[in-house]
Each structure stands twice: as structure tokens, then as C-alpha cells.
């Protein structure tokens, strides 16, 4: 039992203790103990993941745990990345949740007992090594997260609708996964991952294609890819913030894990068009997601769409890796995969921090609407600072952590023209353009979130009454901020682990990127990045400029003056640009894609139709894909259901007869077909 196994066993133990504490301890003790045990669970998961990244592998077979199939677990470097990410997020969220759960519906037994279970499944899913174990853990993850999403259903009615959407879509994904993986197991003649790996080559191309497409759709839905993303912007805002952080920073990554594991490892790479599909889905989701985030005014909805965007970028990297692998260029494929994995890690760090900060804002003001927030910088300085750190990572600019992975991804794509093929030559520039557009829009989105939400002056009484969060929440967020800073300044430390993960995914042991002394140096193509140097240069130059200015200017003391108001009296906070106004130019530019709806209601005075009593303006940007794609599908299903009511005649004989006739028909068909 090496480090990985010991850490996983510890994680399971902590989860059991935390769940027991959540069920049976009285209120005062319940939240801190369950939270602390959840944090310990996360630390154990992180340790297991880091050990796996360091090169240790582990496997275990527990045949009696699940009836009929048994439980098979195996950990390699690829699982290690996702386990480490999940563990780190759980650790921070566990600490954060102690403060967040106090005084809400969230300190109830149900929530406190289920949260450790959810966290444990997040850590165990990457360790599954057979189809039934994987599906069982996946379903457990879905059920526990569903229970947590609807935790606050008594306070808001929107929570129930969000829960319904989430339940339906996650189970639809499960069905797709089930069909795909079962087909794979049947075709390969065995359900454990080693058997699948060995048997994949013997399957017919049609079978392999169908397996990849079906299971890939299921995984893409979990990762929030367009068009199966509709649950993401509904479930994340309504879920409690620490659960949203877990979902956005750890759960959606498992969709990516599934695609990498299935496509690159188990199916052994595949034809180029698979990866072209993955890349196209990723690129479209990235641009669509960030566009919707740009016009979103609900802070958590904005963050949810940003998750969709970032995972789209990750899938662009995975798709590029698959394409390069299919064309035979292994080092470039390994580079693209390393970029995708690094972006997953970076995204987890800053997205968890963003959601936790949004939770702090919600905790302090009760508001999620950016239009009504503002001025929080003075009232919640630490939270504002931490949000700024995370936003720097999210905009993918130096010295933030998002920049390193985006740089690596761009390097992989830009050097990809060396791969022969006209299709690559067309796809790569379009992918680069999509990444660039999404990066630019992400900058606009997070300037909006930070500037409109936190700066200037408060635009509502709740925002004016905000207070700083309790210390446990700040501690949890601080841990995540430390992670962001470490990833930003020393990404080279992760390079060996990422290379090993790529090797575990079947891309052989080429070392495309090495971390020499905190630099990221590309080995097969030329390029290097030294984020610490950039940050240092910026800091040094700032000190120099500041000193120079001070030296040259005569007077030293700063005075305050009123804002320029065109001579018309002091501007009110309501005159500041809100999130809606900030996004208006972007909304106009992308009018065709977003299709905003506007309503003007004019209520005239009763006595005369020419005098106006009230005018009401209502503007909203619906999710266009939901309108165009989901609504017709749902209407069609509903009509099908109404038509099917004709089968329900009310006669018990008829109902029994349906069953009997079906059985007899099946038997006849069986008999005839022999």
C-alpha cells in the first residue's frame, strides 16, 4: 500500500467521519467538525494526486463491494492531475464552508452529511478502473450534487426549477455514457479498463466511432459544452456558493477527464474527425460561453458561463492533442495535452476562488445582481482583493495564472502548422482566433465583474450595508489565492507531472515542456516563458517609475477633490455605469448571436390615453441555444406524450395485454431469428 493508496484510504475514512458528524452531532459542533473533516478529506485527495503526479501508481480490486461487478480502482498520473485538483478545491471549500454554512439552511444535517460524500466522489471518479465502478461513482456524484444544489429550495422557488433541469440533464448524460460504455465493454469483451484497452483494437470502426460519440456527448454535457450546457447557468447560481465552487472547479473537469481517458487512452487515439469535433465543440463553447457571460448581470451566472468558456479552451487543447496524435506528431500532441491540463488546474484555482468570493458577497449583501452591487471594495477589502487576484487569473494576462496555460496552448496551436494536412491549416487559425476572441471578451467580462461589482459606490442599501466575511471564509479563500499565486509564478514545478500525465494518456514519454528553475521551456519547439521574471520586471519598473515621479513632482501631500459633475451637482451612485450598460456595446456588436429581447410597457393615465402614467422597460438576453434547440425538442416530446395518452384507455386488461403482447412478440422474434 503505497502513498496513493494510503491517502485514498485516509480520504474515505475522513469522508465517513465527516458524514457521521454531519448526521449525528448537534448544531454547534456539526458544522466545524464536518467542515474540518471535509478539509482533511481534500488534503488526503491532494496528497494522493500529487503522489500520482510524482510517478507512483496504485491499483486495487474489491470484488465484493459492488454486487455483480466488484470495484476496481487504479491511479496513474492522468488521474492524479484531476484528483489533486479536486482535493485542493475540496480542502479550500471545506474550510470556507465552515463559515458559509453558519446561519443558513446549510447547516442542516442533510447538507452537512452529503457534502463530504460529494467531495469523496470527486476524488474517486478519476481512480475508477472499470466501467461499472466508473458509472456507479459518476451516478453517486450526480445524486449527491443534486441534493446539494436544491439545498436552499425553501428560500427561493427558482432553486426547484434549477434542480429539475440539472437532474434531467445529468441523467441524460448518464444514459449516453451508459450506452456508450456498455457498447464498448461488450465489443471489447471485458469491462475493466485494461480489458477495454486491449480489446479496443479488435472492435469495428463503426463501433469505436459510436462509442466515442455517445460517451463523448455524455462527458461534454458534464463539462458544460454547447449545446448541452443549459444546466450550468441554472444550477450554479441557485446552488450554495461553496457547492458551486466544487461543481465548477472540480466536477466539470471530470467531463474532460472522461474524454481524455476514453479517447486517447482506452480507444487508443482515433481518426482525426473525432478530435476535430472535440476542438470545434470547445471553440464554439468558449466563444458562446463568454459572450453570454458578457451580457449576464447575475454574478454567479456570469461565473458559470465563464466556466463553460474555460472548459471550451481546455477541450480545444485536448482536440488539438488528439489531432496531432492522429497525424503522428507525438511531441506536439503531448504539448497540447499539457497545455489543456495546465489550464484545467489554473481554471480550478481561480474559478473556485471567484465562486467563494461571490459567496462572500452573497453572504454579506444577499444580492447576486451586479447592477445593484458596488462599493464593496471599501466595506469588504479582503474579499475584493481576493476577487481581484482571481479575476487576474481569469483574464489570462500576466502576472495571473491563466496566462501561462493560455500561452502554452497558443504555442501548441501555432506550431501545429508543421502537421501536414489542409484541414489542420484551416482549423488551427480559426482555433487561435476563437481563443483570442474569448480571451478578449473574458477581459471585458472580468473588468465588468470586478469594476461594477466592487468598485465605485454602492447602488443599493444592501450593498451599502455589507460587512467583511468571517475568518474561516477568508481562510478558505486565502488558500485558493495562494494556489493561484503559486501557479502564476512557478508553473514550471508542474511540468514534470503534466508530462507524466500525458504519458499516462497514451502519448508516450516525450517531454514537450520542462520546468527548469520555474521557467517553462518547450523542448521540441523553441519557446520559453518565465512568469516570475515578468512579474518581477513589472514590480521593479513600477517602483522605479513611482520613485521617479515622486522625485520630480514638487508637492507630496495628496488632497481629495470632488468628482467632475459638469457643474450640475454631485453625481449619485445610480449614475454610475451598471453591468447592463457596460455590456451594451458588446451586446450591440453581437446582436445577431445573442438576440436580446426588449419590452416597453406604456401605462397611460386612466382619464386620458395621451398622458403617460408609467413606462416600464424590460430587457433580457435569453440563452439563444435554449430557445432554438431545447424549446422545440421539449415541445415535441410533450406532443408525443399527449399523443401517447391514447394508449392509456383505462382498462387494466389493455395494460396487462401490452406487456404480454410485447413479451410474446419478442419471443417469436427470438425463435425466428435463430
Amino acid at each position, binding site marked *: 500500500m503505497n502513498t496513493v493508496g494510503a491517502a485514498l484510504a485516509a480520504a474515505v475514512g475522513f469522508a465517513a467521519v465527516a458524514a457521521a458528524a454531519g448526521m449525528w452531532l448537534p448544531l454547534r459542533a456539526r458544522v466545524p467538525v464536518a467542515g474540518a473533516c471535509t478539509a482533511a478529506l481534500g488534503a488526503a485527495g491532494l496528497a494522493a494526486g500529487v503522489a500520482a503526479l510524482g510517478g507512483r501508481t496504485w491499483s486495487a480490486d474489491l470484488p465484493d463491494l459492488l454486487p455483480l461487478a466488484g470495484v476496481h480502482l487504479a491511479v496513474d498520473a492522468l488521474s492524479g492531475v484531476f484528483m489533486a485538483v479536486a482535493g485542493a478545491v475540496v480542502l479550500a471549500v471545506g474550510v470556507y464552508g465552515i463559515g458559509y454554512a453558519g446561519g443558513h439552511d446549510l447547516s442542516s444535517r442533510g447538507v452537512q452529511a452529503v457534502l463530504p460524500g460529494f467531495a469523496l466522489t470527486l476524488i474517486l471518479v478519476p481512480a475508477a478502473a472499470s466501467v461499472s465502478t466508473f458509472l456507479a461513482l459518476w451516478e453517486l456524484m450526480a445524486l449527491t450534487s443534486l441534493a446539494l444544489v436544491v439545498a436552499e429550495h425553501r428560500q427561493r422557488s427558482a432553486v426547484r426549477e434549477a434542480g429539475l433541469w440539472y437532474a434531467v440533464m445529468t441523467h441524460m448524460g448518464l444514459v449516453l455514457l451508459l450506452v456508450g460504455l456498455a457498447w464498448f465493454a461488450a465489443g471489447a469483451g471485458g469491462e475493466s479498463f485494461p480489458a477495454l484497452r486491449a480489446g479496443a483494437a479488435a472492435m469495428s470502426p463503426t463501433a469505436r466511432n459510436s462509442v466515442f460519440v455517445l460517451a463523448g456527448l455524455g462527458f461534454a454535457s458534464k463539462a458544460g459544452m454547447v449545446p448541452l450546457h443549459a444546466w450550468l447557468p441554472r444550477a450554479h447560481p441557485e446552488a450554495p456558493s461553496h457547492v458551486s465552487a466544487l461543481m465548477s472547479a472540480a466536477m466539470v473537469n471530470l467531463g474532460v477527464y472522461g474524454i481524455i481517458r476514453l479517447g486517447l487512452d482506452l480507444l487508443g487515439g482515433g481518426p482525426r474527425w473525432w478530435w476535430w469535433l472535440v476542438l470545434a465543440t470547445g471553440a464554439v463553447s468558449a466563444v458562446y460561453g463568454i459572450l453570454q457571460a458578457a451580457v449576464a448581470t447575475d454574478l454567479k451566472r456570469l461565473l458559470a458561463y465563464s466556466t463553460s468558456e474555460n472548459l471550451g479552451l481546455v477541450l480545444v487543447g485536448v482536440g488539438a492533442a488528439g489531432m496531432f496524435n492522429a497525424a503522428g506528431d507525438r511531441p506536439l500532441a503531448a504539448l497540447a495535452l499539457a497545455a489543456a491540463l495546465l489550464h484545467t488546474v489554473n481554471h480550478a484555482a481561480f474559478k473556485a476562488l471567484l465562486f467563494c468570493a461571490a459567496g462572500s458577497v452573497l453572504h454579506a449583501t444577499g444580492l447576486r445582481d451586479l447592477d445593484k452591487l458596488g462599493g464593496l471594495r471599501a466595506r469588504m477589502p479582503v474579499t475584493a482583493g481576493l476577487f481581484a487576484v482571481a479575476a487576474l487569473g481569469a483574464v489570462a494576462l500576466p502576472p495571473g495564472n491563466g496566462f501561462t496555460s493560455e500561452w502554452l496552448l497558443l504555442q501548441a496551436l501555432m506550431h501545429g502548422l508543421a502537421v501536414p494536412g489542409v484541414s489542420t491549416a484551416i482549423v488551427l487559425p480559426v482555433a487561435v482566433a476563437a481563443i483570442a476572441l474569448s480571451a*478578449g471578451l473574458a*477581459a471585458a467580462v472580468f473588468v465588468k465583474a470586478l*469594476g461594477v461589482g466592487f468598485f465605485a459606490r454602492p447602488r443599493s442599501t444592501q450593498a451599502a450595508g455589507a460587512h467583511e466575511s468571517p475568518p474561516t471564509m477568508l481562510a478558505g479563500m486565502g488558500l485558493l489565492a495562494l494556489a493561484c499565486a503559486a501557479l502564476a509564478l512557478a508553473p514550471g514545478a508542474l511540468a514534470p507531472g503534466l508530462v507524466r500525465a500525458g504519458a499516462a494518456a497514451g502519448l508516450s514519454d516525450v517531454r514537450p515542456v520542462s520546468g527548469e528553475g520555474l521557467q517553462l521551456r518547450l523542448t521540441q519547439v523553441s519557446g520559453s516563458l518565465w512568469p516570475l521574471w515578468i512579474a518581477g520586471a513589472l514590480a521593479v519598473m513600477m517602483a522605479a517609475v513611482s520613485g521617479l515621479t515622486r522625485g520630480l513632482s514638487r508637492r507630496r501631500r495628496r488632497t481629495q477633490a470632488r468628482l467632475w459633475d459638469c457643474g450640475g451637482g454631485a453625481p449619485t451612485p445610480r449614475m454610475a*455605469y451598471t453591468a447592463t450598460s457596460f455590456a451594451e456595446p458588446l451586446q450591440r456588436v453581437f446582436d445577431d448571436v445573442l438576440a436580446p429581447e426588449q419590452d416597453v410597457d406604456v401605462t397611460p393615465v386612466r382619464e386620458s390615453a395621451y398622458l403617460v402614467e408609467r413606462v416600464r422597460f424590460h430587457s433580457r438576453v435569453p440563452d439563444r441555444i435554449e430557445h432554438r434547440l431545447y424549446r422545440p425538442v421539449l415541445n415535441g416530446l410533450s406532443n408525443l406524450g399527449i399523443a401517447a395518452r391514447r394508449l392509456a384507455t383505462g382498462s387494466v386488461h389493455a395494460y396487462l395485454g401490452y406487456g404480454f403482447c410485447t413479451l410474446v412478440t419478442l419471443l417469436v422474434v427470438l425463435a425466428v431469428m435463430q
Partner: protein
Amino acid sequence: MSGAGAAAVVAQVVGVIAGAPLLAGLMRQVRARMEGRAGAGVGQPWRDLRKLLRKEPITAAGTGPAFRLAPLLLVDTTAVVAALVPLASTDTPVSDRADLIVVVAVLALGTVVLALAGLDTGTAFGGMGASREMTVAALVEPTILLSVFALSIPSGSTNLAAIVSGAVDDPARLASPAGLLAAAALAVAVLAETGRLPVDNPSTHLELTMIHEAMTLEYSGPDLALVELGAQMRLTVLLGLLVSLFAPWGIATTASWGALALALVLLAVKVTVLGAVLAAAEVFWAKVRLFRVPELLAGSFLLALLAVAASFFLNGK
């Protein structure tokens, strides 16, 4: 060896800081002369900066650290870019860190910080400027990155020193369709990034037509001096980048003092000429409406995409 290289870096930074107001003055003078005015003289921006530095530092009420730090960061990011870009020499201690994507990103950082400062004031103008600036910045990003892509194809890397020395060794690639298209695309992108006509009018005083100026309405005194200097430096650095990428003759490829001196002189001459040409062109241009700017940027994006395609198809793989 490293002496000349380090000196090159210092010379670049100092040159940009000192020369930016001169360049701005020159451009205004050219424009004035072409419009039939006498002009204020080439040294006027320096005089303005000196005047502003001596004024009382004032902070608008209700603003926070973003507002105070933005001018510093603006100058700071542009100075770091001036150190990185091989304006005078490709053999400096920082040349293997001079990645074109990093340069673009650091400049974008300056834009973002200024936009945040605009929002921090809490006035309608600040928000308006920030909103418009971020829209333009978001739409110009694909053009810039695709131009970077097009430039990196012949040299096989996005490292600026490699690109520039490759262009010095093989001037024919600059006259190729890919090179010309990339130049055109980058030129439009530079106009958008620096806030010049036809995207934004730097000398407008009508707030509703402002993009960059609206964010800086609340600044005064030394802060305003830094903001102005930052904008002028940005223009200088970006013109210098264009010159280094597309007219690299004279850039020192070895670390020798003679080559360095010649390179600095030629840099000054080239940037001056380019600035004068730009100023002359601006006389004939009008600012386009904000909602026509995306069309302009879409055109430049198309040029960049064609540059990449031409680079691939004509290099033949």
C-alpha cells in the same frame, strides 16, 4: 557582451520614455502644419508634462487603489514592453524572454488596469470609457494574435528576437503576400490599441465621442502626467514594434557598441518617419462611429487570417 546588451535595454527604455513626448509633439506639429496652423512646437508635450508634474496631486473622492495605481501601471507596463521588444538590438539579456504573445498580453494588462480605474471613479463618463475601451480591446485581440501567428510561421517561433533577426537575414519574406497582409492587419490593430483615428480621436473634448480620454477625465496633476506619458509611450512602443517587425534594417544583431549606436539612430529616424506619415494620414481621416469600429476590426481580422493562410499555402506544406 552583456554590457552592450544591457545598455541596449536601458537605452530602449530611456529612449522610449524620453522620446515619446517628442514623437507626440512632432505628430501634432506635422498635423498642425498640414492644417495650416503654426503649431505649438515639438517640445510642447514635454512642457505640458513638466507643468503637470509640478501641480498638486489630487485624488477624486470615493475612488480607491485602482484609481491611484493605474497611471503607474500604465507607464510600468509600457516600459517593460519597451525593454522586451528588440527596438535597437536582438542580442540583449532579455531577448529570450521577449515573446510576442507576452508583449501583447502586457500591453493588454495596461488597458485593463486603466478600464478598472475608469470604473472606479463611479461616474458615467468613466464607465462609458471603460466599456467602450474593453469592447474595442476584445475585438482587436483576434487580429493581434492571428498576426502574431502569421509572423511566427516563417521563423518557427513567437520569440521576437528570432522573428526580427529572421527578417533581417531574409528580407524577402517581408515583401511576400503574407508579410504585407500581416503588416496591414497589425497597423489597424495598432491604431485601435493606441486610440488614434479612425478608432478614437485623441484630441477630442466632447465626452460622448471619447473612448480613451473618458476613462482619464478625473486625473489631474502628476497622475495626469503619467497617464499622458503612458499613452505617448504606448504609441511610441507600438510604432517601434511595427518598425522592428517590418523594417528591421539597422537593428543590431550583435552586441557591439557601434552597431547599437547606429541602431538607436536608425530607430529614431524610422519611428519619426512613421509617426509623421501617420499624422499626415490622420488629417484626411475622420473618426468612425463606435458601432462601425467592429466592421473595421473585422476587416483587419480578415487580413490577418489571409496572412496566415498565405503563409501556409505559399510556404507549401
